[in-house]
């Protein structure tokens, strides 16, 4: 039975080793903050961190995630108060909210690698994540705010 490390906890799952990590997180472990948008690496709704790297959970088979540190939106910060989450509230970024976990997880990886990104860095870094509601202007502003306020 594969053991995963999710948000600092060791968890067992009996899912088939080929199962995309997305379904293991959402349907087996109940971590539904990670969203399903496309299943093919085209939308970023499923973005999580694998050893700190922003990764499409829909593109990682369970067996490939074993032994790596997985972080989901539920584990990004102890109280939902990561600087990005605070900035997201300050800028009133979400609309329907469905893409936002993925956006925040990608932004968090971006800031971890590049704490003071330029507007261009933000636009390049966030390109994999779609938002149909059109919250992009506020996503960019929220990332800038978080970078500033830390």
């Amino acid at each position, binding site marked *: 039975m594969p053991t995963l490390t999710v948000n600092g906890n060791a968890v067992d799952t*009996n899912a088939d080793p080929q199962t995309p990590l997305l379904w293991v997180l959402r349907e087996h472990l109940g971590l539904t903050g990670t969203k399903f948008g496309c299943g093919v690496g085209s939308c970023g709704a499923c973005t999580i961190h694998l050893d700190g790297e922003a990764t499409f959970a829909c593109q990682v088979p369970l067996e490939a995630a074993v032994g790596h540190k997985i972080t989901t939106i539920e584990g990004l910060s102890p109280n939902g108060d990561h600087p990005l989450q605070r900035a997201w*509230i300050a800028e009133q970024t979400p609309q329907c909210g469905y893409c936002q976990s993925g956006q925040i997880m990608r932004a968090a990886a971006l800031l971890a690698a590049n704490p003071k990104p330029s507007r261009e860095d933000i636009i390049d870094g966030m390109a994999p994540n779609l938002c*149909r509601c059109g919250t992009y202007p506020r996503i960019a502003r929220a990332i800038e705010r978080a970078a500033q306020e830390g």
Partner: protein
Amino acid sequence: MTYHKPNLSRRAFLATSGALSVAVLGGGLVSVFRDAAEAQDLGRSEINAWVSIARNGRVAIRYTSGEMGQGVSTSLPLVLAEELDADWSMVDALQVDQGPPATFGNPLINNILYTAGSLSIAGYFDRMRRAGATARRVLVHSAAASWRVPVGEVTTEPGFVVHGRSRRRMSFGEVVALPQLVTDVPAITDADLKPREQWRLIGSDVGRLDVPEKARGAITYSIDVRLPGMVYAAQLLAPVEGETPTVTTDTDARAVPGVVDIIPLRNAVAVVAETWEAALAARELLKVEWSNTSPFRSTDSAAELKELAAAAADPAREAFPWETRGDARAALRSSARVISADYSTEYVYHAQMEPLAAVAAVDADGKGAEVWLGTQSQTVSIGIAAAVLQTTPDRIRFHAMQMGGGFGRRTFFARDLLRDALLISKQLKRPVKLMWTREDDVKNGWFRPATAHRLEAALDSNGDVTAWRHRVVSASILAFAMPDNWAKANNRDFLVMEGAESADYAIPNLIAEHVIADRRTRVAAWRGIGWGPNMFARECFIDELAAAANADPVAFRRRLLRNNERGLRVLDAVVAISKFGTAPQGRAHGLSFAGYKETRAAGVAEVSVDGEGRVRVHRFWAAVDPGVAVHPNNLLAQVEGGIIFGLSGLLQERITIAGGEVQQSNFYDYEPLRIGDIPQIEVQIVESGAAPTGAGEIGVPMTGAAVANAIFALTGRRQRQMPFGQVRS
């Protein structure tokens, strides 16, 4: 009536499927938290159908419209809280899951619980104010009785009832703890409502109530629901509308571990399994032969575009009048100078980020069910569920879930998706989550129909428009989506035609008419509704007329708006903030005056075109008059989002159909705009103080012509066929 609080913390729950081995992760099961249970804990009093107050002072305000990102879960309670004089920090919003339409229905949508057309604020504003004022009156009368003072001496401050003379005050929570509440209070008249100068909540920028949860990924959408004992259903759907499975070979599929059953349905074969991945794997192994008699087999979107254009050009084709002013036909015939132009739009898909899903648990007797659905209409969905189970609506326990985007996609989909979920659950006697993959959602989309437009106008020697004809050719959306309404509609399809009446423009002779084309695929309203295609065609044509009259686009529109002060104000505002016509070298500006219903709006796009003919929109300015901006920061967000939605459609979205099959599959071949594609957007709110109207659609209609007109200004090439992200010569 049932309600639920959408934003409450989850109760940890251990699913019974055995797949979970730890509880430490928490999360998991459905977070639907019943209002009734909570009411007991907190000693909550129901003040009226919309408000209950707990002894701790928490005020629960109900709202009916579904939250799909447009912010109604904040803006509607905000309106009520204003008249109640609530302390906003003590307010909780409760989603109405179901309830009597007479109480909760939207008066602008046949008095049913239905969320569409940017009609929530417009439909409920007055009702929410009165409900709040009535509730406040209950509190005032109750406190006055307990203090034994005249009612006229008692007033309120946020969250408190106050008797100034004796310096006594009671919190709302203390009032509801009184032994007796005076509920028999005089009815509220217009004079009892707060005058605008006294508003402190309406028009303020409180934070959206749903945003903190959304920043934590903690909202439960229907696709997230998990129930004890639940099975998962995937569907192999008919490749063409109207076909049905004839032969199903499922031996290999059934052999996949975890598969529970394979169930043929009307237009699909459902694969039901203990896990979602097993359902998907088994679906791959399923072999289904389909009937091949559907008339939709012959649908070919390219050929259809030609047919629509031909119908637009053929005066002999029957057209149903939508709007008639004066005698446009005679005026056009007798005019010395008639200009005409043709425009078209193609099929577009909603691409809401949450693929469709339905969760149902049918009761043991098969005559009732609990349902979790992200739907734009509780009433419609409950009606469908009751019909499927041949039962009465009261046997459907309904949860109206937040939606991962709507845009028109979630209006009538319950007809298929919820139906199938109920049938599966009933047959297997287990709760089921039926999910569509993105490919299912694209290939079975309900698209905004392709349209063709012929515009004709007569110009007199002063360059004034004396006659106007706007002929729209399109399948009827209403006939497909709401056949009952269509039967009574006299061939008036507001979902296609609205906007074509061009009511803001002073044109003495006008006809707008609808050539109703055959429906060739599933169709639905799409953000902006008919206003998107209609305003694209009209406002491009206005620029063509201005050019013909040697007038500039601003002056020409100002003449047409001479009787329309609200229109003039947004036009002038957008011209001012954009410094229209002063684009930097290599770019150009384009203008569009295009509102949505009573909301007036105008937009300016600044574009460039690269060596390969690819269009880039660098900046977009909009001025918007929603009457009253109830929640301004959210209004801005809606307009920004609508502009991006509109730009995405006009630049690069297109569904094509061949042999009845949709040719696109997923975001790699139907790709909405990404963050790097969007312009810098500036929106100015220009309030007229008229009755407040909606914001959800308003960004879309102005975009098409603003960009097309800018491309013309830059390249001299008219863009009359949407999409046009690649310039057509």
